[in-house]
């Protein structure tokens, strides 16, 4: 048959490609994950649990979750607003905004952290002003949150902008002519159109917010039990030659990441099912009427 040869590679090439993909997956993804869990349990279950349940470890877990809970909603709102503005409006400085959104990805996280120290630290530009009002930013929760917001700023916006650009604004305009207000257009038309991309962006933002090391390391000051997040705590344990403890905490961090993935899958699955049920309900009432 003509046309079938066009995409048909020889069998050995296909086998080699599949094998290569599996090998990369095994070495780059599966083995590191396996190592984390194996090392975590290298001493004993009890040891791993103790490493996670001592007060400093618990404080680090609490801080990491708290930071993620603050950062993800803020960056979701920001990403939506930025994507909406740049797709729906033409304004002076738009190109600059689009370019600047990528900046946190281009800059090393260590530099991102240092910028905040130089701005808000005791010797920094705004340091005297903050000190005069008794506001602590660097070496405290606000600094960690600011640094994490900065580093994870692009995730949601970058997921949404190309998608919204490609989808165009026809549906939004149709909604406007049908009498919908701005908020209704956003909630009933735009948000449903981008919800899976939004969820992916939030997931990536969350994973990075919980795992961020460089920027947070600079602004946190490493005060045990106070400004140590999970990644920082892992490094402290590792530097103390507590390998099993470090990997126990790593395993928990990995589990949080896996749980985020699972949550996203579950939400996607439930939403799809609700949609199908909704369609069937309309069908049923249509038949009954």
């Amino acid at each position, binding site marked *: 048959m003509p046309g079938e040869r066009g995409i048909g590679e020889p069998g050995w090439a296909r086998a080699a490609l599949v094998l290569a993909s599996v090998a990369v997956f095994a070495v780059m993804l599966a083995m590191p994950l396996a190592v984390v869990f194996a090392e975590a349990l290298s001493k004993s279950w009890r040891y791993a649990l103790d490493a996670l349940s001592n007060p400093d470890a618990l404080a680090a877990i609490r801080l990491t979750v708290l930071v993620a809970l603050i950062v993800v909603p803020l960056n979701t709102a920001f990403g939506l607003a930025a994507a909406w503005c740049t797709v729906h409006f033409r304004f002076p400085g738009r190109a600059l905004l689009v370019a600047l959104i990528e900046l946190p990805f281009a800059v090393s996280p260590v530099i991102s952290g240092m910028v905040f120290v130089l701005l808000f630290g005791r010797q920094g530009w705004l340091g005297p002003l903050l000190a005069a009002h008794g506001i602590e930013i660097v070496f405290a929760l606000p600094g960690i949150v600011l640094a994490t917001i900065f580093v994870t700023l692009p995730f949601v916006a970058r997921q949404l902008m190309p998608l919204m650009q490609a989808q165009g604004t026809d*549906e939004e305009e149709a909604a406007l*002519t049908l009498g919908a207000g701005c908020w209704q257009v956003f909630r009933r038309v735009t948000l449903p159109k981008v919800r899976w991309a939004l969820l992916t962006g939030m997931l990536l933002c969350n994973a990075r917010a919980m795992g961020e090391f460089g920027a947070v390391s600079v602004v946190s000051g490493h005060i045990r039990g106070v400004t140590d997040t999970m990644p920082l705590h892992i490094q402290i344990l590792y530097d103390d030659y507590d390998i099993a403890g470090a990997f126990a905490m790593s395993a928990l961090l990995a589990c949080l990441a896996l749980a985020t993935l699972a949550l996203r899958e579950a939400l996607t699955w439930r939403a799809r099912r609700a949609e199908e049920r909704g369609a069937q309900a309309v069908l049923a009432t249509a038949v009954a009427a």
Partner: protein
Amino acid sequence: MIRLAGITKSFGATRVLDRLDLHIPPRSFVGLLGPSGSGKTTILRLIAGLEQATDGGIEIGGRPADRLRPGERGVGFVFQSYALFKHMTVFENVAFGLRVRPRRACGGEAGIRAAVERLLALVRLEGLGPRLPAQLSGGQRQRVALARALAVEPRILLLDEPFGALDQQVREELRGHLRHLHDALGMTTVFVSHDQEEALALADRVVVLNRGRIAADAVPSELRLGGAGRIHATVPAPAA
């Protein structure tokens, strides 16, 4: 009913409409004809309030409409791409204009349901309410877009290349259908077309546009009988 007075519209340095005057009386059925880039669609979008004129004024129903939002102008718009809400069923697409109204105005869920069923019957799509737009043919999608626009009971129906993407047979069927709806509902209808034969067959009055100005404005019989040569003369091929 609709009056455009000295309308100029520029996008950056490009002037799409140039001091255009157009008066469309109530209940008329007007076709805007012209090559691509002649400003036809821009006129529809200005009437609908999706664009703001660079200069000049628009009146709808004898009142200045320049400050009115699209939803306040009493227009229904059928987009060239149909612009159906892809994530909503046909039923919800048609119901949209009713759902975004204040609660009391639409008679609750039962009122909405009755209205949507009536509209689906009007465009002969009974029973397709539960489908998603992706599960429909081109002609069916066009009729959903029409029903959705009619749901808000517009005084003015605006259609951008309504039959552009359809094959010949469906086209002719829908044409007759649109004419019938226009007469039955007593609306003012304005549609855009680049197809001379279609505009002449459907409209009571054809406005020929060229480079942002009105090149001809007449009833089809005049254009066909007296002015067949003229219409060719004033509407050069898009390539020219």
